[in-house]
């Protein structure tokens, strides 16, 4: 059986840089930071008191109050991004039995879980859990709600692999379409973990930047003074569609999804393998699946979270896989601007890759001040300013706690 081709026909996003996909791209190519002091709760006693929040967010703008209250904020973000992508792809008239929803979230409804547990702990022991608590909290409520809203009756589930979650959802969607189990899949990912338990938990892992005096300068992948990631929130959605199906209905085609790779570090639950062996493997797997050679790749949107260990391991792996061609690549970590969206990272970075191809502009790695002597200075990290470049093939890497590695490759479609 030959595999079917899969293209991208719609995009949507709600991010710390902007609340639509075009606004997100404006922020990316301008090199803007989304970091600022935390407004969602009183963080004055926390080691980290800033994050990349979605700005000016009011659920009432998007949902009737009664409807919004039944969804955790990570599901609200999912619906907003998916609505934009579905509208962009103009899916009116497609057979809804053949449209799936495969979403990614690393955590699910942490805000709801925390609120219900606090309310119980503050009570007299009488269990007064809200009937909407469980449906709000479970991670699959994102894909469930998207399907209910749009009546999409195809395959429906959520992938969870920490910060790799929404690259895994994209690869799953890709496979289901390739295997003829759906013609269209609404995919993507969302996360909303800027809560006391989210920030406190990541602080305890010593994973987050504590540069409270200059939040906008804190996310600095590949800089010698990097001190951890900056927590972000939001969502992005991609409409994946079988190529002939898209052509037949005259859909706008952004790019082709040509390959997906997955691997595991099998090393440590939170620390990356310093040799980057799992990361070498995942990029090799993705290149093989895509049927291209390393020299075909123009741009890598790295995982690059701004942690001391992770950034170096990924760069080492890129050099192993790409050899001399590594010097011809544009490499950038857009987490320098968006912060780290955890389970939403793969989706917003896939959207960044596709828009980079559309505009032939590589978004930068901002906040570069001091070279890290451990990193090869001949590599082009696209520091501080976007660079014009014909981008035909773009790769997006994402890795998650647990040692999950994923890599996806998009290519411009010949017109």
């Amino acid at each position, binding site marked *: 059986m030959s595999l079917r081709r899969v293209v991208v026909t719609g995009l949507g996003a709600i991010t710390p840089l902007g609340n639509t996909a075009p606004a997100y791209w404006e922020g990316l190519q301008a090199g803007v930071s989304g970091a600022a002091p935390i407004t969602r709760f009183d963080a004055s006693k926390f080691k980290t008191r800033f994050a990349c929040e979605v700005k000016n967010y009011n659920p009432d703008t998007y949902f*009737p*109050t*009664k*409807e919004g209250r039944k969804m955790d904020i990570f599901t609200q973000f999912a619906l907003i991004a998916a609505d934009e992508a579905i509208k962009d792809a103009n899916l009116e008239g497609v057979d809804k039995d053949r449209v799936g929803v495969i979403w990614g979230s690393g955590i699910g409804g942490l805000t709801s879980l925390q609120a219900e547990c606090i309310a119980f702990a503050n009570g007299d022991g*009488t269990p*007064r859990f*809200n*009937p*909407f608590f469980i*449906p709000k909290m479970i991670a699959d409520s994102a894909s469930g709600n998207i399907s209910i809203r749009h009546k999409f009756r195809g395959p429906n589930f959520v992938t969870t692999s920490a910060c790799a979650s929404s690259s895994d959802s994209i690869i799953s969607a890709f496979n289901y379409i390739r295997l003829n189990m759906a013609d269209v899949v609404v995919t993507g990912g969302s996360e909303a973990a800027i809560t006391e338990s989210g920030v406190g938990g990541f602080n305890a892992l010593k994973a987050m930047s504590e540069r409270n005096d200059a939040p906008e300068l804190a996310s600095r992948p590949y800089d010698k003074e990097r001190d951890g990631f900056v927590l972000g929130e939001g969502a992005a959605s991609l409409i994946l569609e079988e190529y002939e199906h898209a052509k037949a209905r005259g859909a706008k085609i952004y790019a082709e999804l040509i390959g997906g790779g997955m691997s595991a570090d099998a090393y440590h639950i939170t620390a990356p393998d310093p040799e980057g062996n799992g990361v070498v493997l995942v990029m090799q797997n993705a290149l093989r699946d895509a049927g291209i050679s390393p020299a075909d790749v123009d741009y890598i949107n790295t995982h690059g979270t701004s942690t001391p260990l992770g950034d170096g391991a990924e760069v080492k792996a890129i050099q192993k896989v790409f050899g001399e061609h590594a010097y011809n690549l544009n490499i950038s970590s857009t987490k320098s601007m968006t912060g780290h969206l955890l389970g939403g990272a793969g989706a917003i970075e896939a959207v960044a890759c596709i828009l980079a191809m559309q505009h032939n502009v590589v978004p930068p790695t901002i906040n570069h001040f001091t070279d890290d002597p451990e990193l090869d200075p001949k590599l082009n990290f696209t520091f501080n300013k976007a660079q014009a470049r014909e981008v035909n093939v773009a790769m997006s890497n994402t890795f998650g706690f647990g040692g999950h590695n994923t890599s996806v490759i998009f290519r411009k479609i010949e017109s």
Partner: protein
Amino acid sequence: MSEIAEKVKAIIIDKLGVEASEVTPEASFTNDLGADSLDTVELIMEFEKEFNVSIPDDQAENIGTVGQAISYLEEHAK
């Protein structure tokens, strides 16, 4: 209208997102006010919390309209 009736109406307006004019004594939560089974459970829980009562499941089943909620709570509220 009693204080209890006022509070019951306010809870229903807030939880079900309906207009005050719709919340008549005869209005059924499910047939008239758009509630599904989970909304109804949430309403009963809010009544329990607000009026510091515990409504057994077999009695909660008989509270289907605004008027039934008000009379039950006027009788049982502490």
